[in-house]
C-alpha cells in the first residue's frame, strides 16, 4: 500500500509538463484542423458570396422580429437581399450599401445602431456602469481596514486559518448530516 502511494506521488511529481503539453497540442491541433477545413467550390454558384452574407447579417429584416435579411424568408427581406447583391456586384462598399438601406427604411434596419447621436448612449452606458461598479468594488475592498492588521500573513497564520476553515467545514458537515 505504502509503496503504491509513493509510486503515485513520484509519478505525479515527475510528470513533465512536456508530455502533458505534447498530448494537449496533439489534441488541439487535431481538433482545430478538422473544424477549420476549407470548403471546395463546385460548379454550383452561390446565391451570395461570404462577403455579401456578412453584410446581410448586419441588416435587420424590417417586418420580422429578430432576423436579419440573410436569414429571413419574408418577401421584403428577400427583395432587400436581391438589392444588396445588385449593389455589391456594382462594387458599392459596405458602408454605401448600409447607407442605402438606412435612407430607404430608417435606422431600424441596422442591427448594430451607430455609435453616434442618440444611440451613442446605448454603447456608452454598459461600460460606464461597469467602470463605476469596478471602482466601487475596489473602493470597498480598500476600505476594509482589517487587511492592514495582518500586513504579511506569516506561514503559521496561514496554516492556522486553513486549519480553522477545515474545522468549520467539518462542523458544518456534521450539522448537515444530522
Amino acid at each position, binding site marked *: 500500500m505504502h509503496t503504491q502511494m509513493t509510486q503515485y506521488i513520484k509519478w505525479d511529481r515527475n510528470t513533465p509538463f512536456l508530455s502533458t*503539453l505534447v498530448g494537449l497540442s496533439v489534441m*488541439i491541433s487535431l481538433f*482545430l484542423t478538422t473544424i477549420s477545413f476549407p*470548403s471546395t467550390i463546385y460548379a454550383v454558384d452561390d446565391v451570395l458570396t461570404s462577403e455579401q452574407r456578412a453584410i446581410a447579417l448586419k441588416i435587420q429584416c424590417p417586418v420580422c422580429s429578430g432576423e436579419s435579411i440573410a436569414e429571413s424568408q419574408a418577401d421584403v427581406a428577400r427583395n432587400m437581399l436581391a438589392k444588396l447583391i445588385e449593389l455589391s456586384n456594382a462594387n458599392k462598399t459596405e458602408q454605401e450599401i448600409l447607407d442605402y438601406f438606412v435612407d430607404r427604411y*430608417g435606422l431600424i434596419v*441596422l442591427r448594430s445602431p451607430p455609435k453616434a447621436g442618440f444611440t451613442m448612449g446605448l454603447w456608452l452606458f454598459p461600460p460606464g456602469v461597469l467602470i463605476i461598479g469596478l471602482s466601487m468594488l475596489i473602493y*470597498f475592498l480598500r476600505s476594509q481596514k482589517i487587511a492592514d492588521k495582518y500586513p504579511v500573513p506569516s506561514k503559521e497564520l496561514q496554516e492556522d486559518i486553513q486549519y480553522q476553515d477545515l474545522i468549520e467545514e467539518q462542523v458544518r458537515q456534521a450539522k448537515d448530516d444530522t
Partner: protein
Amino acid sequence: MAYSDIGYVSLVVALVMSIYTGIASITAVRFYYAPLLLSARNGVWIISCLMLIASGTLIYGFMTHDFGLRYVVLHSSVDMPWYYISSALWGGQEGSLLYWATTLSVLAGVATLRNRNRYGQLMPYVIATIMIVIAFFLTVLIFATNPFERLPFSMPDGRGLNPLLRDPGMVIHPPMLLLGYVSWTIPFAFVIAALITGRLGTEWVRAIRRWTLLAWSIQSIGLLLGAWWAYHVLGWGGYWGWDPVENVAFLPWITGTASLHSVMVVERRGKLKVWTISLVILSFLLAIFGTFVVRSGILSSVHSFAESDIGHLFLTFFSLALVGSLALLLFRLPQIKDEEGFESPISRESGFLFNNLLLIGIGFATFWGTIYPIITEAFTGDKITVGPPFFQQVNGPLFFVLLLLMGVGPLLAWRQTSMRALVKSMSLPLVLGFSALIMSQLITQKPFVALSIGALVFVTATILLEYKRGLIIRKRNTGEIYPLALTRLVSRNKQRYGGYIVHIGIILIAIGIIGSTAFQTNREVNMKKGESVAIGRYVLTYEESFSRIDPEKEILGSILTINRGGKNIGTMVPSTEFYNKFQGQPSSKIAISTTLLDDLYIFQASRPTDNDVTLSIFVNPLVMWIWIGGTVLILGILIAAWPEKRTMWTSLTQTAKI
C-alpha cells in the same frame, strides 16, 4: 351554466381563499394562535387544488373542442394532435397567466408541505408573500383576461396553433421557462419573510440557497430547451438570437447566477447579506418583468404597450413589489450590515464579488440593449434595432473575463490567500492555457478563438487539479481505491464538487458556442436536379423533389444524398409545410445530421420544383457540445442539490411517526 363556469368559479374562490390564507397566517403568528396557522396551511393546499381544477377545466375545453370558449377558438383546432392541444394551454396570454398562477400555487403547496416542521417563524410570512403574488395573478385573470370567456355562439372550428409552434420543443420549452419565472417567487418570499421578522441569522440562508438553486436550474433547462428549439425550427443555423424575449428570460438567470455565488459568502462568512438579498429580490422582479414582456409585446413597439389591457396592472404590481421590498430592506439595513470586513482583497470572498460585478455587467448590458429601442423611440421618435452584433460586442469580453475568473476562483482560499500560494497552484494551468493559446493562434489565426481556447484549457486544468488534490488527500487519509475515493469525495462535498461539474458543463457549452460562431460555414445555392455541392467535408447531391398532401397541410421537400469524407451516409430531406389555415406562413422542417464534430444543417429556402431548389446549407462545428454541456450542467446541479441520505431517512421516519 356551462362546465367552464367551474373554472371561473374556482378562480374566484381561490382569490378569496388566498386573501384569507394570507391574513390568517400572519394573524396566527402575531397572536400565537396555532389552529389558525393550520387553517392557513390547509388554505394553501386548497388553493393548489382549486387552481388545478381551473387549469383542468380549460384543458377539458381544449380536449372536447369546445369552440364556444374564446381561448379555445384562438389557440386550437380540430386537426391538431392531442399533445399540441394540451400545450395550447400556455399558447396565449390568458392561459399562460393561468399556468403561472397554477404552478405557483402548487409550488407553494410543496414548500408548505416540506417545511411544515421547519422555519416556524418564517413560514407564515413566506405563505403570506406567496399569497399576495397569487392574489395579483388571480385578480388579473378574473378581471382583465378571463381564460373562460364564452363567445355568444359556438364556432365550427378554431384558428389553430401557429405552425412555428407545432414542434415537440414547443410542448416542453415554454412551460419550463414559465416555471423558471414562477419559482423565483419562493426564494423571494423567504427573503421578504426574513426581512419582516428580522430573523436574519442562518436559517433563511439555507432556505433561499435551496430554492434559488431550484429556480436557477429550471430556468437553465428552459433556456437550453429554447436554444434547442430555435436551432431545430427557425432555420437560421443558430440557437440564440439576442431577441427581446430571450433576453428578458436571460436576465433573472444572470442575477440568479450572481446570487447563487454570493449566497455562499453569506453561508460561510455571514457577509454580503444586503447584496445577496437585493439579488434575490431583483431576480423575482425580473421574472415578473419577463412574464409581462413575453405576453404584452411592449418591446416590439411602444404602442402595443398602450393597447395591452394588462400592462398597467403589471406595471402597478411591479412598482409596488419594488417599492415594498426596497422599503423593507432599508428598514432592516442597520441589522444586516456586515460587521467585520474582508480580511484581504485576494480571497474567495472577493473572487465572488468580482464574479458578481461581471454578471451584473452582463445583465445590465443585456437589459440596456433590450430596452434602448423604447428609450430611443420615446425621445427621438426613431425606431431602432439592437441586434446580436451589439450584444456580442459588449457581452463577449465580459464572458471571457468571467471564464478566466471561473478558473482562478476555486484556487482562492476563504479569508485570504498569499500571492505565492496562488501563483503556485495556478502555474500548471497557466502554462497549459498559454501553450493552448499560442498553438490555436498558429493554427487558426483568429486571436479571439485562440484567447478563448487558452482560457478554456486554463479553467479545465484548474478544475481537474481541484479534483485531483481532493482525491489525493482523501486517498491518503482513508486508503480507499480511486473510484471509491472519488464518489465519497463528491458525495461528502456535494455543493463544491457538484458546482465544479456545473462549471465543466459551462465549459462544454462555451466550446460549442465558440466552435459554431467562429467556424460556421454557410452556402446558399440554387441546385438543379443531379447537381452536387460541396461544403466542408460534405458533398450534397439533389436527387428529386417530393410532395405529400395531408388533411391539414401540404408538404414539399427535396431529397438529397449526402457524402461525408468520401462515404455515402444516406439521404436527408429538408422540407416545407404549408398549413391550410396558415397559407402565408410556410413552416420549414430543417434536416440536421449531427456528429460530435459538426452538424450538417439544411434549410429549404425556396419551393422545390422537379428541376431545381434553393438551399441554405450550414456546417455548424461542435454544436452538439452545447447540448452535451447542458446535460452535464443539469447533472452537476442534481449532484449539488441532492439531499443528504440521512436527512431523507430521518424525514421519512418522522413522517411515519406522525
